[in-house]
């Protein structure tokens, strides 16, 4: 047969595991702490996996595209509107001091340096985060995450195609950075142009 089966030789590890089944405080409190512990373990594992090879660079690029560039329209519109409001509201005051020619710089710097990153981050967190969450949970429910594990693919590492798995957080980071620069440049040019136009217009 070649296979020996140890019937009643439980390892220490298994004994301990059996013991943890006992309630410590009360069932619901125990459950809460176990939940916290599980979440903590998950986060730790995530950060471990991010910095450990193999890295899937192509996936990172795809995800950066999906997350970054596909949010561009939304972020641009937001930036555009903020630019208009800013310009319209500050111009009268600036004009009183004869400083209307500083307006483009003011708006440009305020939006690009100060608001751009915040906006991008918030929109990424809101729009992209929730879509990643939705996709991940649907993958979990339909056992796609388990399917990855079973075919020896680490779901922390590889994000499916759109918003694959937990590995996504690291992609969204990349997307964020990429997007950040893109949006910034884009917004900068935009606001420059827009402000010049507005300037002439008023």
């Amino acid at each position, binding site marked *: *047969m*070649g*296979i020996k*089966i*140890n*019937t*009643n030789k*439980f390892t220490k590890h*298994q004994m301990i*595991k*059996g013991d943890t*089944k006992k309630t410590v405080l009360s069932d619901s409190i125990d459950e809460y702490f176990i939940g916290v512990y599980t979440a903590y373990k998950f986060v730790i594992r995530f950060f471990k996996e991010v910095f450990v090879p193999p890295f899937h660079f192509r996936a990172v690029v795809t995800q950066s595209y999906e997350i970054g560039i596909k949010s561009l329209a939304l972020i641009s519109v937001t930036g555009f509107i903020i630019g208009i409001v800013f310009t319209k509201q500050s111009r009268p005051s600036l004009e009183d001091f004869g400083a209307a020619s500083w307006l483009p710089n003011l708006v440009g710097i305020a939006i690009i340096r100060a608001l751009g990153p915040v906006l991008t981050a918030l929109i990424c967190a809101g729009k992209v985060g929730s879509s990643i969450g939705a996709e991940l949970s649907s*993958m979990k429910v*339909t*056992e*796609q995450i*388990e*399917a990855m*594990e*079973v*075919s*020896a*693919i680490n779901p922390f590492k*590889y994000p*499916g*195609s*759109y*918003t*694959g798995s937990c590995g996504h957080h690291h992609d969204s980071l990349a997307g964020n950075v990429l997007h950040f620069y893109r949006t910034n440049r884009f917004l900068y040019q935009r606001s420059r142009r827009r402000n010049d136009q507005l300037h002439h217009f008023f």
Partner: protein
Amino acid sequence: MEKPKLKTTNNKGETVIAIKGLHKSFGKLEVLKGIDLTVGRGENVAVLGKSGSGKSVLIKIIVGLLKPDRGTLNVLEKEVEQLNGKELDELRLRIGFSFQGSALYDSMSVFQNLAFPLIMNVKHLPKKEVEAAVEEALEAVGLKDKAERMPAELSGGQRKRIGIARALILKPEIMLYDEPTAGLDPITSAEINELINEVQEKYNTSSIIITHDLTCAKNTCNRIVMLVEGKFLPSGKFEEIFKTDNQQVKDFFNYNFIQ
């Protein structure tokens, strides 16, 4: 429906799965209460049991997706619980798992679904070989023309078959089918049964087939075990099980073949 005589119980002595005294509970719910099971090479074993009896939990424990509370679990001569991540991955590559709900990656086409485990596990595989492997697997399940479809565009039975093809693509030694015919019409079920038999003959795999479908069990399996209240009833050939006095087993049969 006559089943072709299964001839592949060669190298009979070799055991590929050996489970002894397996316990598993979720919180207060005891699901498995001491499971013993051995599966030989080239053997098909059907696991019957009513919904919620822990059949899926059992095979998830076999591939290490869930951890047992107690008991020993030996798969392909490896103690599953003692394996580290890498060894577990190596073991999993030798096991094919067909999920209850197919579990196709719904953001990928059928082709990508099949190619994905290959590309991720075999380094620097030429594109031609991937295509050939995918084609072979699709051919085995008779869905060669569906390669460019998305999973959402397939019927339930087709999805099941693609799921089986995906499990087959790494040429596993053990196949675990989780309710391969559940929710399918009799004709498609018969096709899937045939597919399971073909797979066993072609690749000499050992299989555990979870099912409520007695026709499926009868036509594909050498042996049947029944999971009742967390334990297996004595296993046996289809006819032996049929003769039992156990009320649960009787109910099971009565429903399937209206007497």
